[in-house]
Structures are given as structure tokens and as C-alpha cells.
């Protein structure tokens, strides 16, 4: 059986709702009431939508180029988060901007460097100098937080 992206999304939603129902059934009534009141109809609606998506399967279209672009940006975001965890925001910000502009944006290194420097300057001025906002130093620099 062929599964479209839309149908997979509806199925995922149904699974989340089913998990919520099964988990909430183990709780005392007070704690379970609200989750059950929301997850049972959610399960029903998600299953109905899944069937609708299955019926409309032939009409669904794949967009591999869009998916590739989406995965690319999500990978950059994950990379930025990894940099923040490792080095903290103050170092991750200019490195990420420079890296993205050079590699993904294919911008000249001089422009990439200038913009990365400008981003770091604005970040430093606003958060560190003006607002005195405390950022975590990152695992590599602060030894784990």
C-alpha cells in the first residue's frame, strides 16, 4: 500500500492521540479528565482524516525538491543548536552566520565575514552590554552546565 506524506502525518497524529488516551487511562480521574476529553475526539478526527487522505491518495503530489530544501534548512538549524550547546551563543552566533552565508548562501567570504561580525556586534551590544543577559557558556567552554 502506498502511503502519502499527508496520510503519514494524519497517522502520526492518531498515534499521538492513542498514546495520550492509553497513558491518561492510568491516572486518577481528576488528572485524566482533561487529557481524555481532548485526546479521544482527537483520535477519532485523526483517523477520519487518515481515511480521507488514503482515499485521495492518487491526487496527492510529491515535491522532492521542496523536501530537500526543508531538510537542508532543518539540518542547518540542528547544526546551530549543536554549536550553541557546545560553544554557547556568543561564539555560535558569528560562526553560524559566517558558515551559512559561505556554504549555503554561497556569498563571498568578505561579505560573509562582515555580516557575521555585524551580527556578533549587535548581539554583544544588546544582550551583553545593554541588557546584561546571562548566556550559558557552552559545554566545551564552561565544562558542561
Amino acid at each position, binding site marked *: 500500500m502506498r502511503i502519502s*506524506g*499527508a496520510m503519514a*502525518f494524519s497517522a502520526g*497524529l492518531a498515534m*499521538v*492521540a492513542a498514546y*495520550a488516551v492509553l*497513558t*491518561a487511562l492510568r*491516572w*486518577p480521574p*481528576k*488528572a485524566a479528565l*482533561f*487529557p481524555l476529553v*481532548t*485526546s479521544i*475526539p*482527537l483520535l477519532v*478526527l*485523526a483517523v*477520519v*482524516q487518515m481515511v*480521507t487522505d488514503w482515499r485521495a491518495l492518487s491526487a496527492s503530489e510529491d515535491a522532492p*525538491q*521542496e523536501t530537500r*530544501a*526543508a531538510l*537542508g*534548512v*532543518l539540518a*542547518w*538549524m*540542528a547544526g*546551530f*543548536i549543536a554549536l*550553541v*550547546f557546545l560553544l554557547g*551563543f556568543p561564539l555560535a*552566533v558569528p560562526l*553560524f*552566520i559566517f558558515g*551559512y*552565508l559561505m556554504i*549555503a*548562501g*554561497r*556569498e563571498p567570504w568578505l561579505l560573509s565575514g562582515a*555580516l557575521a561580525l555585524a*551580527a556578533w556586534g549587535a*548581539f554583544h551590544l*544588546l*544582550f551583553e552590554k*545593554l*541588557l546584561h*543577559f*546571562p*548566556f*550559558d557558556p557552552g559545554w566545551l567552554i564552561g565544562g558542561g*552546565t
Partner: protein
Amino acid sequence: MLDALLQGLFLVLQWNAFSLMLVGMALGFVVGLLPGIGGAATLALMLPFVFKMSPVEAFAFLLGMHSVAATTGDITSILFGVPGEALSAATVVDGHPMAKNGEAARALGAALMSSLVGAVIGAAALAVSIPIVRPLVLTFGSPELFMVTIMGIACITSLSGQGTSAQLKGFAMGLLGLLLATIGQERQSGILRFDFGLIYLWEGLDLIPVLVGIFAIPEIIDLAARGTAIAGNAPSAKLGAGVWEGIKDTFRHFWLVVRCSAVGVLVGILPGAGGGVAQWMAYAHAVQSAKDPADRERFGKGDVRGVLGPGAANNSKEGGDLIPTIAFGVPGSGAMAILLGAFLIMGLHPGPEMLTKHLAVTYSMVWTLVIANVITVIACLALLPYLALVTRIRGSLIIPFLLLLVFVGSYTANRQLADLLVTLGFGAVGYLMMRFGWPRAPLVLGFVLGKLAETYLFISMARYGYAWLAQPLVLVLMALTALIIVFPYLQERRSHAN
């Protein structure tokens, strides 16, 4: 009263108070552009600086900052689809599609002018209603507040689009939002719900990472996939020329702006109704005011009325919020709770004193709201054609800065690194929702109102049993809720009959 009103104006226009208001406004302008540090957080950060100020100077500084943050939050919402303020996300729904259509300046003009009208209406409401609003606030107990949250949730019908499938998806997303709101420790029994053994989830999911992920990241992915500027291939001439069009739109739909401002004031007055409700209810009202289903179809695709309604409610809410804070010391929102701290620092006691002995100080707050908004709108109008040009910058140059805005914003809300992962996760989910036609607004509405609804329901049941269902005001609110749910269907049937 007129003397006090004029005295309040003179107090704000004194050199010290006025210059401090300008400093506060400059700060508010910058932080309003960032999703994480909202108006409330900035108030908290700046509270220590008011110790040496007089009450008028302190409130000019704090309120100037707070009211401007509410206005400028709309700028990033429209230009980039990144909500500048956690509670001002409704502007994204139609504002960003307008920017994509090359109408960024028009959307910004409309948002700013409607914000100004909303702020003036909110300030006027504050000026006249303090003495008379007491019975209304005291009438609203937990059953009535529960029904107000249910009214907010009922707006899902207007936010879901038309047709059975769109309504089904809208309700499903609203339910998912409500379900997500149940994550964390249940307040009455102490049971940990859906925490997966993570301490991070004990307090539940925070609104900002969810909101920014759901709304901003899908737009950034879309921008990367298109490989163009935000405004795509829209003609350049349209970009800067739309400012006056946006201003005129405010007056073309003036009664809509007034009605949405009234929604903002009313929601602001009710302590505990939550600021997030105001914008979404105003947006839902704007959708419902469409003439027919075909007219309604335009919402979500860049209809200026979808910008005017939330813009007006966002700023009128500030005046409404101040009413219970000043009159009874009951803060209507988190920001007002912090402002209450400023009252105590200044040695002022909210309540009857503010309406008699310190009436001029109270009116100086009214004037601060008005003057700060007027100055912001004038300054922004001068900058708008240039701001709108940002939508012409090629995507590859602007994307890393948008990502920076998104992730720094998410982190600064709570200083939790895990919030970055939540933002990314909800960003991916939001992208899939956008791609497969699931509306995002109902999810956010359900999430914002879920915790409030559960808390008020529990208190109502514990206090009154089922008897609260028969209270007169509850019945009125039930009827209004039913009307909100049924109205779009009635409208569709009438349209088919015609």
C-alpha cells in the same frame, strides 16, 4: 477630573518624564522585535532602574517601553512571519502573506495605524471606566472565566477555514493544542502528565518556543525552498507605496477596528483571561465580519482586515489591562503583575487612592499610552518604506539572521537550552502542517487557553459542583459561545440559499 487630566498631561510632558519615556520607547522598540524578550520580561529587567525615579517618571519609562514593544512586535510578524511578541502572533496569519504578496508596507501601515487607534481607545477606556468597572470585574468568578476561555476556544471555527475537511482539521489542531497544554504537573493532584521522565517538562511546554517554532520556522523553510526574497517577484514599486494605503484601510474598516479594540479592552479588563485571547478573538471577529463565505476565503491569504483586528486589540488590551491593576491591584497579565511591583517600589497603593489622591498620576499613565503610541507610529511611518525593502533582500542573505532571531528569542524567554530543541521540533511539525493543509492558529489558541480552561473548570467544580452551569452570566456566555460556533455555518447556509 478635567484638572487632573490636564495635570497628568503636563506631568508627562515635563522634561525628565518625557526623556525617560523616549528612552523606554527606544528599548521597547528593540526588544519588541525579539520573540523571546517580550514586554513583560523587559519590564522585569528594567524594574531595578526605577528606584530613584518619581512615580510619573517611572511609569512614563515603563509604560512607554511596554506599549511600544506591543506595537513593534507586529513588524517582525509581518515582515518575516516571526512573532515579535508571544501574544501577538495573530498578525502573522494575514500580515506575512501580505508581505509575500509584495504588500509589506501596506500591512505595516495598517498594523501601526490600527494599533494607534486601539491604544487611544484603550487609554480612553482606562480614563473613563475606572470608577464604573468594579462591579463587572467582581462579577467574574471562575465559572465565568472558564466560559470566557471556552468562548476563545470556540473561535477555532472561524480560524479553521471553510468546508468539512478544513473544519475537521481545525478542530483536531485545537484539540492537539489543548492536549499539549496538559503536559507537566497537574496542579490539583500533583500527577506528572506526559513528562517522559524529563524534569524540563514538569512545568509544561513554554508558549514562546512552541509559538515561534510553529509560525516562524515553516516560513523560513518556505523562503529557502522558494530561493527568492520574501516578497518573491512582486513589483518593487508596490513595496514602499502601500503605507498610506494601509493607513486608509484602518479608516475604511474603522468600525471593525473599533469593535476589535473593544474586544481587547474587555479581555484586558478581565483578570486571568490571558492576553493571548484578545488578539485571537479579535482576529476571529474580523473573519466573522466577512460578508459571505467567498469574502471569508480571503482571510489567511493576505487580507488587510486580518491585520487590522489583531493590531487594534493588541494595543487596546494594554489600557484594559491597566484598569483592574490600578483600580483594585488585581493584575490582568504577567506584565501588569510586574508593573504592580513598580507601584509598590514607588510607595503607591493601587485602589481608591489612585482615583482620589493620585488621580493625576493615573492620568499620566493614560497620556503615556497615547503619546508613546503616537510617537512610535510617526517614527515607524517614516521608516516603513525602508523596512518594507527588507522583503526584497535575497533569501540566502536573510535566512541566517532570521534563524538567529528565532533561536535567540526562544532561549531568552526562559534561559533553557532545551527550548531550542522544542522550537526545532515544533518548527518541523509546523512545516508539515503547512504542507499538508493543517491550520496552525487553532493549535496555538488551544495551547494558550488549555491551562486556563482546566484550572477554571476545576475551581468551578470544586466550589459550586454542577450548579455553576446554571449561573445567569454563565448561561449568557454559553449562548454567546454557541453563537460563535454556529455563526460561520449559518453564514454559509445563507450564502448557499442566496
